[in-house]
């Protein structure tokens, strides 16, 4: 395997830079996916039938914590990549771990939110508005869950092999994914929660 040392490690081989480019293309598809889900949500947002509307349901507190956790985790995964570029394996693992833990915290709050909604009688079946809410949030949440598992797998590989072209490449791609989930969350936060609370 030819490694080009003039480039950052994660871009070093031809395959690695293809993977990163490929992941950007994939993120293009993910944008289309979430754009569709947002469209569905906007179409159905006022169709709450006999169920509650957003302003009756949402509470700002937990959502702010979720936002804080996810935004900070986006920062820490950035620090992890920074550490990786300097070959600081321990620091990288620490930041990576913090990122995943915050992701887990986010998921915990989101799940407890869902449970509260359901207890208040707002289920997937109640109204079109709630169906689209649960599926939009759920798709984002499923992405975070998948990201958690994927990130954990990468961490294990990092611990085993250290920072090499393969693990660096995976970690970098993971960081792109994680940032992307953050961006999606900002849209959810603004257009689902803030707008819904107004």
């Amino acid at each position, binding site marked *: *395997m030819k490694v080009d040392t003039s480039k950052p490690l994660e871009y070093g081989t031809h395959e690695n*830079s*293809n*993977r990163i*480019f*490929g992941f950007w*293309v*994939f993120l*293009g*598809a*993910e944008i*289309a*996916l979430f754009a*569709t*889900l947002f469209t*569905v949500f906007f*179409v*159905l947002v006022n*169709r*709450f*039938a*006999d*169920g509650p509307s957003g302003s009756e349901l949402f509470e700002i507190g937990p959502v702010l914590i979720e936002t804080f956790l996810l935004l900070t985790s986006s920062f820490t995964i950035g620090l992890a990549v920074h550490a990786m570029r300097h070959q600081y394996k321990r620091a990288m693992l620490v930041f990576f771990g913090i990122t995943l833990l915050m992701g887990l915290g986010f998921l915990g709050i989101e799940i407890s939110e869902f449970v509260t909604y359901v207890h208040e009688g707002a289920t*997937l*079946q*109640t*109204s*079109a*508005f*709630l*169906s*689209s809410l*649960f*599926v939009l949030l759920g798709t984002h949440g499923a992405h975070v869950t998948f990201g958690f*598992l*994927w990130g954990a*797998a*990468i961490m294990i*590989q990092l611990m085993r092999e250290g920072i090499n072209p*393969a693990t660096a490449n*995976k970690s970098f791609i993971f960081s792109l994914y994680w940032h992307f989930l953050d961006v999606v969350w900002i849209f959810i936060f603004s257009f689902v929660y803030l707008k819904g609370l107004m």
Partner: protein
Amino acid sequence: MNFDLEKFKVHGEPLIYGAMISIALASIGIVVGLTVFKKWGWLWREWLTTVDHKRIGVMYILAALLMLFRGGIDALMMRLQTAAPDMKFLDAQHYNEVFTTHGLIMILFMAMPFIIGLMNVVVPLQIGARDVAFPRLNAVSFWLFFFGAMLLNISFVIGGSPDAGWSAYFPLASLEFSPTVGNNYYSLALQISGIGTLMTGVNFIVTILKMRAPGMKLMRMPMFTWSVLITNVIIVFAFPVLTVALALMMFDRLFGSQFFTMANGGMDMLWANLFWVWGHPEVYIVILPAFGIYSEIIATFSKKNLYGYTSMVASMLIISLLSFIVWAHHFYTMGQGVMVNGFFSITTMAIAVPTGVKIFNWLFTLRKGRISFTTPMLYSLAFIPIFTIGGVTGVMLAMASADYMYHNTMFLVAHFHYVLIPGAVFAVIAGFHYWFPKVFGFRLNERLGKHAFWWIIISFNVAFFPLFILGLKGMTRRMYTYSAETGFGPLNMISFAGALGLAIGFVILVYNIYWSTRYMPRDKTGDPWDARTLEWATQSPIPEYNFAVVPNVKSRDPLWAMKHDKQPLFEDQITKIHMPSNTGKPFVLGVVFFFLGFFLVFSMWIPAIVAGIGVLVVLAAMSFDRDHGFYIPADKVIKTEKKLGGGTV
């Protein structure tokens, strides 16, 4: 969970029992055959675990041919049922299932995989690459497509097929009005194969943008490669919409959500919009590569370079953009008002302009060319006028106010077969004949090929032209029977005769494959058609590494320039070549997805969860895999090159 065998059963119909028996016999036959000839190991090593783009391409094409026959038998059954008034061959439910699976199979499991198969075989060669960017992902794509297709196919004998049309409009496709598991199959089978297609899209965009041989600038790429690039961009932006639509459908049907329901705020038209936001680009996903195929064939057999290269590329780009803003022309009659209909009417008609540009470019390529009438060329020539009829009737349908007359009649059915069959089917058949010698090292027999061609071309018009008239007379689509007083009988009978002729044509085509495999002489040149592009610059059959030496491209038709202007193409020395190694994981992933889909179709939650975890386990196994492939040593490459003909040594 109560286990109820009843829901797996399909009742009545001797035809279905016939299908069950033939599926069972075919499976037993395959298993016995493989065991008797000790071919299991061969099958696993050479095919099921392969990551070679050529083999994956061949598997796509084989699967597509199988599906062509499955969809074709559906078509024959429908044509037989409507051949005369008051026929009792299929009942209403069965007719519904047959036209639904026919449409789905023809578009998603025949046309698209056939095209993806050709692009797998051809595109890396045309750009002078050793493989696609992500060979393993490519295998994942194939197996997801394949097992998605299998999932839809078993619906016929286990539980019942989808029956709400290939467009599955709500509320008809909801649990309330389609209570069988048929539309569960729809949502899951399409989802699984759709994910595979999306991965193909990512893979080929990277391949084409990042894996080109030195000197192969974007504006030097062969037209087929251009069409594939644009198509894959469409795939990447259109398929996620289908992913969402199918997921929402699944939620509505399995978990009682309210997206497309009639109560609790649901909106049935939302489905129609989502479906066609994907669905219209989808028809361009199958037609743009076809345009690329015709461009290659017409240039080769006119012995001229393609006329209007730049305008060809530009028109494809414009078509791909427009394809995303025409979707509402599928439901002008659903009451969205004059402004909306006007907008979509205009965008739809606008597509005729770039398409017309392409037609004229082909005509100018032919002009003063030294034309040889080979089988692939015949299909390309026949395509031009027939597709034009399809296009002109398309513009008629595009006029919203006039569409109130044609909407959902046989006129529409005639129109879309007049674009899809010449636009996609003739193209893949032409491409199949054209690139066949590249892959297998011998040509298909020309006499048999032309025989099949005339059967297919003439029968096609006999089968579908009457439908224009029937439509204007008021025969609606998806109508399983009619009375003698309507007067629809004679034209339907003619159409049935045409369908039979088509079937004969396809049988001759397949017989030709068999005959040629046995008797056709081997081609040692690697360039049997005296062609222009890079795929013909390597040996036939293609060695696993594609090119012993990576070509150095200096012009648009590099092989032609090498042959006629003595422009050197292979300048480097042969060195060891890096190859990816085979892997069984993509196949296993496909199998696990198949079971996940199947369990979800029948709402068997615990097995479904187990299968879902299985998916994650296979993905993890892939992530932990550290296989860096292997090298073919230089002397082995030289040996292979000598054996195959020795053009580049």
